[in-house]
């Protein structure tokens, strides 16, 4: 247990920025968009103090391509944005996936489609987990549910990005970004900033062979080979899934929810448990790869499922794919533009409980 004076009281956005600095992020490229502005604002002073560099780009497109350049040269770098801005970054994200460039991208999801609003939503789940840009690719996607987790997963995101040579996405929302909570910051040990960069574009110092980071594969069969390699890499991530299970063991009904909604659903579970009703929570922490096997195990125990999302049904697809041979899931959508409370979830949960 950490001591009280080790703890700091910060917004989710700031926790992500602090996590990135703890992970020795050296470059940050941003562009203002609500509700993630605290991240570039924090970085504009703190990353410079830490000996790194900050650029406010001319657009989200440029920021993502600056990230591509920094990542290609083997340096820990990050960008952050929110939904419409992340849509603009998809061009570079596809190129980074194709060129296997490590980088961390933060999306504090707001309401859409289009300009939508600046309130919380989870409408970018498909975009985040299916490869939002062109071509066949995926990237690691984390969905933190607390401010502490936002800090922890940001540090982890950098490690995975460099170990797996992939862009890693952190998918939060306006609730997580704007909410203040006490967290215990920690510093990861032994980050070797030059390790595992034997592919990076750093200059042919000492006369070594030249290196090339690219996503163009024109020779007969070369692109198929690259895609085979990428898919094998994505398949290997299946062992790296993470999920939180809360009160699932004896539960009749399992709520499936992630991020901020997962946290609100947890409060609802606590309330139902007080009334002696057997409700549990399954909260995926890795959204890609999705923790399908763990969920399927619960389905095989005869549990019922209710997926709750701050969108009109996106993670629901992954839940159904995971449990399809044994069960199905009901669904309760929270329309974007509204901030849900645990009370709001009571009625749909009760309906599901009594439905059988």
């Amino acid at each position, binding site marked *: 247990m950490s001591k009280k004076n080790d703890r700091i009281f910060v917004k989710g956005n700031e926790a992500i920025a602090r996590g990135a600095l703890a992970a020795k992020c050296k*470059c940050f490229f941003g562009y203002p968009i609500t509700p993630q502005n605290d991240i570039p604002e924090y970085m504009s002073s703190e990353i410079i103090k830490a000996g790194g560099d900050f650029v406010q780009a001319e657009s989200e497109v440029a920021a993502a391509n600056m990230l591509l350049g920094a990542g290609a040269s083997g340096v820990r*770098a990050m960008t952050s944005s929110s939904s419409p801005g992340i849509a603009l970054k998809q061009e570079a994200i596809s190129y980074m996936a194709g060129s296997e460039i490590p980088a961390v991208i933060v999306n504090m999801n707001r309401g859409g489609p289009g300009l939508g609003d600046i309130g919380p939503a989870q409408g970018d789940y498909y975009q985040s987990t299916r490869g939002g840009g062109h071509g066949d690719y995926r990237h690691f996607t984390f969905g933190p549910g607390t401010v502490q987790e936002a800090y922890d997963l940001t540090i982890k995101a950098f490690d995975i990005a460099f170990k797996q040579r992939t862009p890693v996405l952190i998918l939060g929302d306006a609730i997580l970004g704007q909410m203040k909570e006490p967290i215990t910051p920690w510093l990861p040990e032994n980050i070797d900033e030059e390790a595992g960069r034997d592919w990076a574009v750093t200059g042919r110092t*000492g006369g070594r062979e030249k290196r090339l980071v690219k996503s163009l594969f024109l020779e007969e069969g070369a692109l198929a080979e690259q895609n085979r390699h990428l898919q094998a890499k994505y398949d290997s991530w299946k062992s790296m899934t993470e999920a939180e299970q809360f009160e699932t063991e004896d539960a009749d009904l399992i709520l499936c929810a992630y991020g901020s909604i997962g946290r609100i659903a947890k409060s609802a579970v606590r309330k139902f448990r007080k009334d002696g009703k057997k409700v549990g929570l399954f909260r995926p922490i890795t959204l890609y790869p999705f923790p399908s096997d763990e969920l399927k195990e619960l389905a095989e125990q005869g549990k019922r499922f209710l997926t709750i999302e701050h969108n009109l049904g996106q993670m629901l697809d992954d839940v159904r794919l995971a449990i399809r041979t044994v069960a199905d899931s009901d669904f309760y959508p929270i329309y974007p533009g509204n901030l849900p409370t645990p009370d709001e979830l009571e009625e749909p949960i009760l309906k599901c409980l009594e439905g059988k």
Partner: protein
Amino acid sequence: MSEMNEKLVFDRPDSVIDRPTHYCPGCHHGIAHRLVGELLDEMDLTEKTLMVTSIGCSVFLYNYLNADAVEAPHGRAPAVATGVKRARPDSFVFTYQGDGDLASIGMAEIMHAANRGEKMSVVFVNNTVYGMTGGQMAPTTMIGQVTTTTPAGRCQTHEGAPIRMTEIIASLGGTAFAARGALNTVANIKKSRKYLKKAFEFQLNGTGFGFVELLSGCPTNWKMTALAANERIKDEMIPYFPLGVYKDVSEEGGVC
């Protein structure tokens, strides 16, 4: 005269890889590549060079120059180069971009990289046409020039006027050096080389952004012989895109 007495006066620079290029006969990319390669050798830059290649015929620059390279999406090379240079400030970074890439889809990126005074160099090859995609109109296509998307010739009232990039870049605060050369004659090639060298020096001494436009021929898409293409550069392009130095802060007293 015996072989022993012969003096080698012209050879392939070490930075240029010994392989045939994929460019069409009469294309000037080969000359531009060579000029860059000669300077990398002369200025001892090969080992610290990080090239950012872009989209179009010149995407394969990395097959011809012996330096590390990263490939950028359409038009984004100046943003990618910004990331590379910020991440590795001790490296020598240049982009190599055509007119469609730089002056159309990448207009925002080039303007802002120049305006920020990024310590990088840009080699801008202007042949007034989209080459790799098959000869469509570029932002620099001349009035009256027939392309596959201006079959009746570019018309100012319909397509706008050809954009003069060097003049625009020279007007921006972070630009240390901006010049326009041409690759149609030996004299112009020599001058272009001097411009490139100056742009590279401004990066190395940390002064600011260096930009060199090179008026170049595309005989295939212009549907001309190589010699006629050279004549066209002289008769049509240079009068509209005048050659020379547009900004040189060493003469102006420097920028912040």
